[in-house]
């Protein structure tokens, strides 16, 4: 009987440790990192995952239960280049953050936004620009798919110029060549430090460059 008593005590404890998404007994740090979890309150759990939460006994419960919905990351951390993975995993948050900062500009009303992203991997750059454009349109901003162009000579010169000077220079050249209309603002999203995932956003309006 004593063995059964201890079994009844230990089984729930061991079970809760095994099912805990945190690293520990039975789950490595790598496995935990590849889970995407969100904490939910009881109402949300009952609405989104009906039947998974047991009813509380009419005599009350003696333990506090945390409810957390976890799913395996579709792309594990080591399946993509680390920097790309970090950026893309939080793409929606980053795009929304950039859009909010852009809209907060004092002269944002009535402008047409052109979005360019500069990132080592062109596929990731395209996704980044796409996300920011969508975020701006969803916030009732005017966005154009037009891509301002530079002459081949400009591109050669800009390629040999340090980034700090290249962006203001490119902005001036866009204005000089008439690539940007009067109400156009070109947003350039760049990765300033290749060792980091911090994105910088600059804007080019009427030939004037400004970091946001």
């Amino acid at each position, binding site marked *: 009987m004593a063995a059964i008593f201890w079994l009844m005590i230990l089984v729930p404890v061991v079970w809760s440790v095994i099912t805990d998404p945190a690293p520990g007994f039975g789950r490595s740090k790598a496995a935990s990192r590849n889970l995407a*979890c969100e904490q939910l309150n009881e109402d949300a759990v009952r609405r989104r995952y009906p039947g*998974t939460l047991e009813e509380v006994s009419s005599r009350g419960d003696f333990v506090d239960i945390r409810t957390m919905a976890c*799913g395996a990351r*579709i792309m594990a951390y080591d399946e*993509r280049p680390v920097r790309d993975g970090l950026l893309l*995993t939080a793409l929606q948050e980053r795009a929304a953050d950039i859009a909010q900062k852009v809209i907060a500009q004092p002269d944002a009303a009535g402008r047409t936004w052109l979005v360019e992203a500069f990132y080592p991997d062109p596929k990731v750059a*395209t996704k980044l620009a796409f996300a920011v454009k969508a975020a701006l349109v969803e916030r009732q901003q005017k966005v154009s*798919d037009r891509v301002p162009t530079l002459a081949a000579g400009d591109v050669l010169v800009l390629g040999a110029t340090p980034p700090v000077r290249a962006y203001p220079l490119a902005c001036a050249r866009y204005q000089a060549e008439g690539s940007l209309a009067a109400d156009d603002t070109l947003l350039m999203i760049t990765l300033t430090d290749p060792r980091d995932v911090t994105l910088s956003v600059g804007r080019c309006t009427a030939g004037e460059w400004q970091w946001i």
Partner: protein
Amino acid sequence: MDLACVLALVLLQQADVPQGAHDAHLAQLEALRADVASQLQLTAFDLLDTLVYDWTQSPIFGAPTPVVLASVTPPAGLGTGLQALLENHLASLLVHNPRSNITLAHCPACTEVVVHSAKQGTVIARGVDTPEALAKVGALTPGLHALFADFEAEGAAVVLRVRVTRVTAALPVVYARTLSSSVGTPALLRDEQSLKSAGAARQEYLDALNQHEARLTWVNRFAVRSFAQGESQGIALAPYIWLETGFETAFTESRAWLGNLAVGFSWAPSLHTAFSLSARADRLISGRARSLTNPDLYLFFAGTLISTTGLDVAAFKSTTAPTVADLLAGALGVTNPELSTSFSAWKIGLELRVKNRIHTAVFLEALPSLNDLTTLGQFTRLGPIKFQTLGAEVGFCF
């Protein structure tokens, strides 16, 4: 004592189980669909279904408008096979749902890279990005729009971003939307030819589930009862083979409690003819509701009234097991023992059931009115209760 402890544990575990049948079924449904739909492309399909369904309810354009499918990009790191699947699904959705007011336009020059030279310089770009070039090759139809879709795996969720651009010199983006799947939420697997809202699709699953849950089923069982040999020396009773038929009903939507009533018949040439009437209650112990995907385990209790006639009856009436001589005498009519008896039996067993169609069970049976007979032994005992019968059965429900 050990058996008692195990049973007590099983009952303790089941004591707090809620009877929220609807919720339990829903949870099973979720688990089943999660298995099927956990694949990335189905989640992506689900997002496209939602997008096009919303377009049919509130179209972007007031009238049918030519739209070229400019690009569909899969999550970074995944191949072009997925891209083709997604492209085909989106095209199929748009073709089958004309209420979206989007008419797919065939425009190879729009998605190809074109070279356009003008006085400002030479531009190399896709056709949709250079409307001037499209106009020159005659591919720019009035009102043409370009549809871009981009999928990305963000943590455990799939995010779909869509934008529609009017193909004019200014290339204005006229529509953009972001849709995301929830963490761990399975796809709804909607039919592309009759798109439904997420709520309607979910209700359709539940209706389909409930349609197959008949409350009353016809049960047929083949059972074998073997009796433990007693201390008396003699010939042991041959097992009784039974054919039972009856009706079963589920007391709850989750089929956690079942009850059935059956009559049985057993016959062995020259040995016995027997009839039974049994009532039985089954309790699901392998979950909170009948599983849609796995076999279910039930614990059952039954009470049976058995009436039997024939030579075998001697073993149920006498404290001395029949010998070969007794049997021969009975067969030849030399002796005329009382050839019939009735007794009650109480049964406990475990039943494994597949999809409410086929089941198999093993059971122990106590014959309390025959406890004192030395012709019957016992297989095991639970306190004062002797189990003299061990049996197995196979059943079919209709």
